[in-house]
């Protein structure tokens, strides 16, 4: 039989270790708390650089695909009365505006943001955009001939693409922002007609943009809506796929920037501003452009690899992001009824 004293001793040792662990973790030091929805693999090196340069410890909470990268937004909403986070680095823009509307953000006009285009920053400084991803179409080169490539997302209503293209869940992530942006850009009626035409043309709904990419890479589908970072992962691995920046001659390609925000009543406001300044620096835009997430710098003269397009060379969809954020609920409800019955 197992000795009872040993069992009790084991419990005691584990208890003591637990308490010491908790106490060690509770120790205070010069630090800043960052919540980030950008993939850890891209954000972590940047955070480490900041720590080295400033000596400020950055405590990070990362979001995951399991929560459709909305877990942190919900956490920030729930923590509203007693903020624990100092800075929110969002990998998109609409939910940052939602947080502003809910009174969770504080204004901060960073000097680093001076040359960022007006479309991508809040005039009061509640959120500031930088390093964007584009909404693109990924295609399988074995299944789509060069001559047949669609030039516009509206081409996908054509019967020749029937059942051959994918769209991620339109309630989450950049797909939700893209859909809401189309509602703003086209008007409700035209946008509804467009999505109804996609539904009638057998659009294949998938859980996320990375799945949209994978289905195209695997040759199960010819074309998929996705983001530049997802598409570039496949292209850089030598998969037989390509990407299209759609609607250059029409409404333009939607660019969705990262956003960084100061949290209201942040426990470490000075360190938070320092971190925001660093995240908005040209250096970080450059690092993100050279990373595998191939984020597009929003400022001129930021060094970037050749496969990252110039901001000026792109036909960028002109949308008011505040309007897009406010359209999310209506567009989401319509699309739920259409695609997720």
């Amino acid at each position, binding site marked *: 039989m197992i000795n009872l004293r040993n069992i009790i001793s084991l419990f005691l040792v584990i208890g003591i270790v637990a308490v010491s662990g908790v106490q060690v973790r509770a120790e205070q030091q010069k630090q800043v708390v960052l919540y980030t929805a950008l993939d850890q693999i891209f954000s972590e090196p940047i955070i480490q650089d900041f720590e080295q340069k400033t000596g400020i410890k950055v405590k990070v909470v990362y979001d995951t695909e*399991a929560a*459709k990268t909305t877990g942190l937004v*919900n*956490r920030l909403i729930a923590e509203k009365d007693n903020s624990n986070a100092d800075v929110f680095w969002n990998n998109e823009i609409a939910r940052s505006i939602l947080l502003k509307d809910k009174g969770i953000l504080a204004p901060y006009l960073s000097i680093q943001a001076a040359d960022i285009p007006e479309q991508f920053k809040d005039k009061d400084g509640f959120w500031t955009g930088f390093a964007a991803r584009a909404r693109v179409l990924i295609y399988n080169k074995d299944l789509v001939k060069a001559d047949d490539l669609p030039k516009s997302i509206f081409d996908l209503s054509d019967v020749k693409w029937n059942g051959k293209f994918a769209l991620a869940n339109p309630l989450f992530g950049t797909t939700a922002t893209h859909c809401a942006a189309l509602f703003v850009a086209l008007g409700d009626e035209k946008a509804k007609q467009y999505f109804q035409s996609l539904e009638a043309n057998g659009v294949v709904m998938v859980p996320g943009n990375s799945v949209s990419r994978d289905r195209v890479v695997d040759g199960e589908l010819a074309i998929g809506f996705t983001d530049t970072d997802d598409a570039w992962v496949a292209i850089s691995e030598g998969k037989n796929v390509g990407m299209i920046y759609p609607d250059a001659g029409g409404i333009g390609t939607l660019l969705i920037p990262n956003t960084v925000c100061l949290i209201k009543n942040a426990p470490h406001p000075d360190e938070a501003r320092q971190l925001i300044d660093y995240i908005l620096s040209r250096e970080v835009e450059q690092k993100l452009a050279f990373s595998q997430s191939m984020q597009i710098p929003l400022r001129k003269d930021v060094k970037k690899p050749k496969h990252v397009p110039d901001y000026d060379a792109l036909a960028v969809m002109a949308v008011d992001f505040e309007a897009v954020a406010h359209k999310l609920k209506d567009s989401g409800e319509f699309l739920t009824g259409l695609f997720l019955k």
Partner: protein
Amino acid sequence: MSFLPKPIIVFCLVLFLIIVLGPLLLIFAECLASVDNIAEAFLLNARQIALFKNSMLVGLGSVVFALVLGVGYGFFISRSDIPFKKFFLFSGLLPLFIPAHITSIGWIKLITGCGLAGNSLIYSWLGVSFILGLAYFPFIMIMTITGLNSVDSRLEEAAALTHSKAQIITKITLPLINSYIVSGAILVFVFSVSNYGVPDLLRLNTYPVEIFVQFSAFYDTTKAVLLSLPMVGVCLLLVLWQRYLMNNKSYVTLRAKNADKIVFNLDRWKILAVLFCTLIFILSVGFPMFMLIKGAGSLSTYATAFKTAWPQIRNSLFFSSVSATFICLIGFPLGYALSRAGRKMSLFIDLCSIIPFAIPSAIFGVAMIRFWNRPLTSIIYQTSLVLIFGYTARFAAFAIRAISSNINQINRNLEESAELACASWTKRLRTILLPMAWPGIISSWVLCFALCMAELGVTLLVIPAGEATLPIRIYTLMHYGAHKLVCGLSVILVLIIMLPILVLYLMYNKYKHKLLINGEI
């Protein structure tokens, strides 16, 4: 209650209620207060009826699949003369520890390759039920074995004089264990209707999916909380039914071999029985593990995985082992109370502990933030204590019930005799109760450790800044397309979870005369 003084039980009960019910009561109160028209909020519209229908279909479908797999599997292990019983017994527990979404991804890849007919099958309530049935059939297996071990063998021996083996099984044995099987089916139902990952992957709208949408797409916590109420109601009713069925019956006694029971000689059917058990093992454990190992590729993936994710692996081990210990520490007095206290008290503990199963983890996470994120309790919210409390709330029910099952089997006369002998309660606890209850405590620890290791929903929302666990690491990599690394880390996660089960298996061999595995909620 002669073994444990009342103040200890009351202290643990109050602690348990604060940890489990405190956050939930607060968030329900906040949400109900924010609704203008409560009657309207509960009104079932067409969409809610469709959700209810889908959820019920998934629940019932999963039960049917789990019954088909679990009853036969449990019977062959417990009462037949098939070989490799111990292997099948322990491998039969493993599906509970392999996240169901991993199985789903494998099945989706396999079946979508079969064309449209396969697609329509997998992307339906049937596909969801099949995968959840595979994941949860161990509940039926455990309860079937428990029931079979409790059957009075004299009844079967008497029947054997005039009836065939098949008649004994269908007319005597199975009717006698009906209540156990139904009890296992209720557990399968509760877990299936509250599962989010599988119906989401297979694009079936059930209550958990709709709740997630309201919560994560529309940020409407009130609606999400209200949507969870019908499932809470159904689950509570089912638990009451389960208590009625299991009244005065011992919960779980799981042994591969029982010397007092009739063992049916299957003769020529033996090979089919072995094939049946092997097929279930392949479908529920072999297939998902094969997909992961194949996905991970070479051994260097595991080296990279260990190198890059060691802090998260260490954190997971730390949080899970401390949480499992804490759960057992408060679960032991409560399990004792559940077994020995009056009807009302044990019903109260039973119902309180089941509620977290019916609440989606995301809502529970938000409830914990609202409850603990205050200046006064920052020592809890800003440290790993919040995780320990979160895991306790989610999984304490397993430990309480497993320990209670063990204590049910301890003869009350022992307590009374010891009390008459005037031994102090600590001496009685040390010399009688703990030595007899330790198998239940150890198996509860293993079970809770495994569940904590794999937990993601609550962890994601309450984990202190600067910390991360292994499941969080896996999911953060998933988006990036690091498929190999994701598979490698998933294999490591499953292996870590299996390690204590392996220890339990070895202990089983060493202490098989004493050890009862209590793995039931």
